[in-house]
């Protein structure tokens, strides 16, 4: 149906208002990162004096570069492991019949609802005892465990969409269930796996509570945790500018990442809710 002009204007206004409101805090932190130390206390929205020194300051200190590396590495490894394990489990849940299926789903749902703080205390104790505290595996393992329910849930929704006939045809051709999985289903599920990988990676990158409780030094501290303990590029500088620059550095790549993959992200987040 053709839209009337008042309707068009109405939607346009709604669109523009939404976009502006969403972007205000983002533009603010970017502008803060460009303000000189002297002008940081001006309550103006846009900087009156521009400088790159905040960025050069943080990008040359290891107290920030190392956490960035930690975030990328820990996130990538945890995502990879989580997607592999979740694919296997999701396939089994969506396609195979075996007792205990409902229990598995129930348990993983329960785990997804766990307050991270309930895990922080015991994990801190356990990891200290095992020597995992302040190490990469010390964060990777909890991240995998928390990312698995999300992964299983998303992937089983994707797997359910793949036509059953393909698998039957493969079996008729003499393939074992495992061969059917590897050669027929996995290639078709690849988009779903990519989406799940994106969601899990975003979760790991963003994660804060476990990151600050299970790490103590830059050996394994991730970027969000490092940000909150930041004291600035020199010990005398008020760190507002540095923190803003650091915040922008850890955020902008992720935003570009999200925008690039937004279709997949939307599909992944909504697949489960729609199909139930």
């Amino acid at each position, binding site marked *: 149906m053709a839209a009337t002009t008042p*309707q*068009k204007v109405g*939607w346009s206004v*709604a*669109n523009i208002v*939404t976009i502006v409101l*969403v*972007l205000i*805090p*983002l533009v603010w*932190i970017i502008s*803060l990162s460009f303000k000189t130390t002297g002008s940081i206390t001006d*309550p103006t929205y846009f900087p009156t004096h521009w400088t790159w020194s905040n960025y050069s300051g943080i990008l040359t200190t290891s107290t920030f570069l190392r956490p960035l590396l930690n975030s990328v590495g820990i996130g990538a490894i945890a995502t990879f492991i989580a997607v592999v*394990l*979740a694919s*296997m*489990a999701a*396939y*089994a849940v969506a396609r195979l*019949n*075996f007792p*205990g299926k409902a229990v598995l789903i*129930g*348990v993983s*749902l329960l785990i997804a609802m766990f*307050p*991270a*703080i*309930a895990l*922080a*205390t*015991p*994990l801190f*104790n*356990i990891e200290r005892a095992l020597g995992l505290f302040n190490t990469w595996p010390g964060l990777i393992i*909890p991240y995998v*465990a928390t990312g698995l329910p999300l992964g299983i849930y998303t992937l089983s929704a994707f797997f359910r969409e793949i036509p*059953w006939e393909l698998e039957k045809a493969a079996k008729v051709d003499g393939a074992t*269930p*495992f061969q059917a999985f590897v050669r027929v289903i996995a290639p078709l599920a690849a988009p779903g796996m990519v989406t799940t990988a994106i969601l899990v990676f*975003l979760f790991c990158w963003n994660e*804060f*509570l476990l990151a600050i*409780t299970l790490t103590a030094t830059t050996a394994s501290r991730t970027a*969000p945790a490092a*940000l*909150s303990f930041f004291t600035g590029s020199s010990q005398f500088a008020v760190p*507002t500018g540095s923190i803003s620059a650091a*915040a922008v550095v*850890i*955020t902008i790549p992720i*935003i570009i990442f*999200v*925008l690039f993959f937004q279709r997949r*992200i939307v599909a992944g*987040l*909504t697949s*489960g*809710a*729609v199909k139930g």
Partner: protein
Amino acid sequence: MTTVTPPATAQQPTTGRHGRARLSEGARAERRLGWLLCAPAVIVMVAVTAYPIGYAIYVSLQRYILSAPQLTKFVGFSNYGAILSSPFWWHALLVTVIITVVSVAIEFVLGMCLALLMYRTIWGKGGIRTTILIPYGIVTVAAAFSWLYAWTPSTGYLSALFNNSAPLTSQPKAIAIIILAEVWKTTAFMALLLMAGLSLVPEDLLKAAKVDGATAWQRFTRVILPLMKPAILVALLFRTLDAFRIFDNIFILTQGNNGTGSVSILNYDNLFTGLNFGLGSAMSVLILICVAIIAILFIKGFGTAAPGTSLQR
């Protein structure tokens, strides 16, 4: 959207009803494969959650302060007693409940508006969806810093708008700011879930309603909302559970000072500042119980379909 016929395995074992029927080779292989495939995931999940929780319950029954380990001894439920009789706990619980209820309510209304916008807007659909996803992509901590500096007197533009009154140090205003930060960040998530539910409403029903003379508001409340009920409940369940566990925003904005601490913040303080593991563990268990109560309330009380259980329509 094709509906997938549920997999009909030819050899459906009838165990339990007429006594053990023999499983065929294919069904047995399938079962083995099923358990095998799930095993690694289950092992990791159980190892990281079940064992620590069991350990937490065990520690919560002891007096165990890290800075005085020689005083460790079994004290039964006295940690729980100490927490439940402490005004700090009830205050934190109240703050958490207020933040949860208010932010979820606001996010629901705004999310619904955004969902309608994303779904029906006439131009710029892709652009709007993209923009709305941005808060989801921003690291929570980074966004929290953005708000922190915005509201800090003499540094922030928002603070200047309100006469530099340091709102983060006054309890009701600080809580309002925390809610604002939460809402800004996660409304997008709520909007996405609601939009998925919105796409399930058949277009013809709406057209029929329009032909019958229903106003836009009536179409919304009588046709769209009831059909969206399952999706709405799922979205509300997820968001409420998430909101109850709020930590990141409060930690950055106020560190829980001036009476703005949530239960998670209180737990963190007791654990890492007070190094009181016994008390910290007991609190973790209590928080877990609260979360379980919320989940049960939603699933049994409101009839939310637990996601993953096949709701055959």
